[in-house]
């Protein structure tokens, strides 16, 4: 009897998916849900205005772009990479779309196609350089960040973009941007998170991303097509950047200035690591990223609502990063000892 026949003849185990995969919600996510709940309750008590639709809705709108790009960033960080060029990419996608809308009143789908297409291209440039160029992701994306910013500034041509039409209002803060009180941009983001969660958990392609981050060499030897997978992760990030740029334009005024996208890459990375994804790769969760984004934006919004100096928000973000990653570290250490 060959080995293969022998294994098939064995009595089938009762194992189900649950026994092979780790539980769908990790310890880190439980903690985050708890912390966010506590924060919301506290804020609700100290600033009654916080728990009103008027305050929650803009909050959700502000969470959307960070969490959306965060999904792509999670994929990238799981492969033990990183992308610090998303700020520059946002700037470029936003200014190109805005200018196109101003100069040639394009319909919604065209605007979206331009944004997502351009974002995808930028992401694939990063992906190609990293996958085929044998260079560290952090260095290359520092470089492309500058290049994207340069191109964006040339398109801006030293002024702001004015008179942006309301084509993208369906993603905005106003009435047109909501259904049953839920902002569309947030709903789409949650949908993307769910699809990404399923992909990472239940498809071979998704599991391969973890394999690449865990041991890229072993992944290659196991026959995984490492380079195309990596390109996919960065390309996805780029495409999501394009979509997020549309959300950002929609949630702003009819004027777009050169500060758009500035510092966003760090916000996204903060959301991802607070969510429990390990910067070393091989381990991560898009649900955690969504929760991380909610936490960061809650803090920012809460600080303003409490009347504290707005810069304090950054201090809290820094502290939360330390606490979140610290507890994750301790948990990992305990798990390894057992």
């Amino acid at each position: 009897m060959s080995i293969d026949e022998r294994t098939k003849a064995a009595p089938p185990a009762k194992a189900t998916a649950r026994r092979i995969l780790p539980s769908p919600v990790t310890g880190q996510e439980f903690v985050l849900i708890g912390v966010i709940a506590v924060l919301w309750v506290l804020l609700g008590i100290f600033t009654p205005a916080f728990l009103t639709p008027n305050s929650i809705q803009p909050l959700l709108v502000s969470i959307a772009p960070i969490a959306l790009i965060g999904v792509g960033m999670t994929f990238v960080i799981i492969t033990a990479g990183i992308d610090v060029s998303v700020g520059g990419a946002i700037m470029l996608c936003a200014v190109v779309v805005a200018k196109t809308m101003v100069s040639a009143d394009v319909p919604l789908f065209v605007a979206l196609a331009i944004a997502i297409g351009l974002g995808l291209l930028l992401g694939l440039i990063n992906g190609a350089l990293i996958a085929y160029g044998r260079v560290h992701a952090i260095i290359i994306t520092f470089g492309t960040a500058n290049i994207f910013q340069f191109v964006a500034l040339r398109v801006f041509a030293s002024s702001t973009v004015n008179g942006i039409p309301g084509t993208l209002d369906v993603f905005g803060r106003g009435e047109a941007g909501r259904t049953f009180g839920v902002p569309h941009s947030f709903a789409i983001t949650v949908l993307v998170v769910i699809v990404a969660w399923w992909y990472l958990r239940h498809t071979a392609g998704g599991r391969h991303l973890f394999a690449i981050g865990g041991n890229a060499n072993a992944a290659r030897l196991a026959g995984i097509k490492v380079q195309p997978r990596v390109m996919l992760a960065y390309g996805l990030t780029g495409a999501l950047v394009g979509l997020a740029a549309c959300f950002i334009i929609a949630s702003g005024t009819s004027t777009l200035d050169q500060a758009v996208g500035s510092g966003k890459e760090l916000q996204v990375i903060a959301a991802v690591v607070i969510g429990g994804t390990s910067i070393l790769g091989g381990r991560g969760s898009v649900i955690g990223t969504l929760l991380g984004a909610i936490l960061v934006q809650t803090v920012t919004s809460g600080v303003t609502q409490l009347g504290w100096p707005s810069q304090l928000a950054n201090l809290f973000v820094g502290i939360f990063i330390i606490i979140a990653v610290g507890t994750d570290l301790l948990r990992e250490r305990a798990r390894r000892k057992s």
Partner: protein
Amino acid sequence: MSAETTLATETYRLELRDIVKSYGGVRAIRHADIAITPGTVHALVGENGAGKSTLIKIIAGAEIADAGTIAFDGQLRSISSTSDSIALGVQTVYQEPQLFPELSVAENVFVGRELTKGGRVDWAGQAAQMHGLLDTVGLPESIATSIVGTLSIAQQQQVSIAKALASDASVLILDEPSAILTDPEIEVLFTVIRRLTAAGVSVIYISHRLDELFRIADAVTVMRDGETITTRPIGELSVRQIAELMVGGVLSESRPKDAGTSGATVLELTDFTREGKFTDVNLTVRAGEIVGIYGLVGSGASEIAGVIYGMDKATSGTMAIDGTPVTVKRPSQAKKLGIHLLPANRSSQASFSFQSIGLNIVIGELGLLGRLPGYASMRKQRAIADDFIKRLAIKTPSEKQPISAMSGGNAQKVVLARQLVRRPELLVLAEPTQGVDVGAKEEIHRIISGLADEGTAVLVVTSDLGEVLRISDRILVIKAGEIAAEFTGDATQVEILAAAAGAEVDAQIGADLEIEIIPTAQTETPT
């Protein structure tokens, strides 16, 4: 080279002819031929740098040959990627388990060839197949859901093998599989291998442990300096002949060990225990004496060395140096007491890969680089390094060369030199010639012997049976964390193996070993 090949020529399962491969400016393989018959175990031996791992990588698709042909079952094939070779039925189990630490055992086994049902992974189906696989390699079923990073190295090795088995391989390559296995685990491995060959699978078996080959291999190919020198049925050669083919000459006689003078007791361990690793170890090492501890991975031997050196703590018992009880809490303290240690795994524990040989030698005694505390003079570094390059016959154009450019044997000499910059009172050597070619092995043994002659107390912890017999004055056998037996230098291999593996294996080993057992005091021990 076909005149040399004396195997029956039906269609070979796998045949490589006229392979050539270079990296940058260096020829890794000058000319290689190898032909594997179905259902046989074909050993591949050679010193480090001979080209074995490159040849294996070409077969596995991890590298592409510059020239030459590859044929499977008589049909010419091109292998340009790992998936090509996997499709042809080649599976490789590397020395370092190529696993994903954050994924479960089951996921690791199926990675790259997941069972899918309409786009999503078929978890239940995979779980069903795991049952039989785990049984075959001797792992408990419950381990299927364990995260691989939490398993021991030996267990990870077994997972690697299960993974190779799962893909219905026709050619299974095992790269130094026994290096990290205990004897019972090696027996399980051999049973699995025999089962596979009976079913028609070919196994390519790479090992430095020449004596093992006689227990499992059918044919052997020897490589040297990038060429396949010869391929013969295993019965036609003796261990000594294989070793000579690997080195390219006749092995010299081993130097007779000074039977005599040992001095005062330098190291004394009394009821030395580290919970979970070793228990109630009692041993002494005297000045001028070489004590060998023979124990396979997992037996506790290397842990004892680690605790003596201060990398870990003992949970009970005492350690005394020169008669005074001491507690060593960290390596810097050990060094102050005159204890120096050569770590077992050079690449992860000893080598500073892209730094110069000079830095690699002096890094243990930076205080010698300058008169003022904290000052380091490059001239002094060079002088010390050059001195050791000469003394230990390290082959290098200059001390500035990075250690990564050296062969295993030379690199090991560099790391050994590091321990000798300041004369140790007690020198602990863990696996001193692992991954070292036969020629350099001899030189290192000579150096160790010389050190003992000059009065250093030496403790060698090794899983290489030939080595421990060759250089030790006394041999302690560790099994499952306890000293199982003590022998003097004229013990035989069979006695030691028996003590290490447990008496029930004794007769089996005696029967399987086809080499001549010669008391080591007189002659060359097969390595």
